[in-house]
């Protein structure tokens, strides 16, 4: 009865010439999103991927179990020396991510253009 989370990976280059791996989510980010969040992240190369950008543009519903998965992913990435940032969150979920402290470890950008320009 829960809506499945899809994830997709895009390999982009920032205007400054840096490679950026975009992990795009679609659907809910909840307790059932483990594969879409952790699984998709773990499929990325630990050697070549330096910056992971999470795209929440097509996500309407995020709950605390889903946020826990995002934090777990950020933790694994930090341990690998990778940076994680995000874009496409609504004003409400930007507030929620800020409340739980995620913004101490990740930047939240308005959209992909703003994110790439800063990376």
């Amino acid at each position, binding site marked *: 009865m829960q809506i499945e989370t899809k994830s997709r990976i895009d390999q982009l280059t920032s205007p400054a010439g840096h490679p950026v791996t975009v992990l795009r989510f679609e659907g809910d980010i909840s307790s059932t999103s483990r594969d879409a969040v952790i699984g998709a992240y773990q499929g990325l190369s630990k050697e070549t991927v330096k910056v992971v950008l999470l795209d929440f543009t097509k996500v309407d*519903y995020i709950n*605390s*179990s889903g946020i*826990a998965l995002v934090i777990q992913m950020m933790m694994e990435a930090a341990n690998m020396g990778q940076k994680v940032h995000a874009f496409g969150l609504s004003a409400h979920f930007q507030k929620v991510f800020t409340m*739980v402290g995620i913004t101490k470890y990740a930047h939240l950008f308005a959209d992909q253009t703003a994110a790439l320009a800063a990376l």
Partner: protein
Amino acid sequence: MQSNAVPVDTLYSEKHSIQSAKEQMDLMNSASASTVEVKLPSRMGYEKVAMTTAASVAKLMGFGEDRIEDLKTAVAEACINAIEHGNRLNDKLSVGVVLSTDEDSLEIKVIDDGIGLQKQPALPNIDRKMHGEEDTRGMGMFLIQALVDEAEWVVGTSGSSSYVRLLIRLHKQEIQ
């Protein structure tokens, strides 16, 4: 970020002994004609039904988009806890949601058939989470308290149902 006093001292407050979330709902309903009730199966995903219903009632009351978003997250988190911790995903139990409106506030009780909150959880700490020193979960109650104007967890006595009571005001109150 909003600053909300968190009345967790009511955590262990007593109430009349009643038998089930259903009876609890019946009891509450008799009070007011402006009450909407929802009964949900204890199954993950159904929190979204309660969330949408609450948003619809809040819209009818004239709440702004921002406050409705706050309410949606708080109601969803309360229902997830009722489904998971209260009713332990038991298919035979329902979660009750009672939405009572008055002129300038919306009160929401999310009722389950569990024993209720046994101890107040620690505040989530992002540094500890990022360093693997605490579970990455454990943010639901914190978010509920931060997003609504009042939140209290009431433990049912002698095996009766427990609930969390949320209150959200149409107009922000003056800081005293």
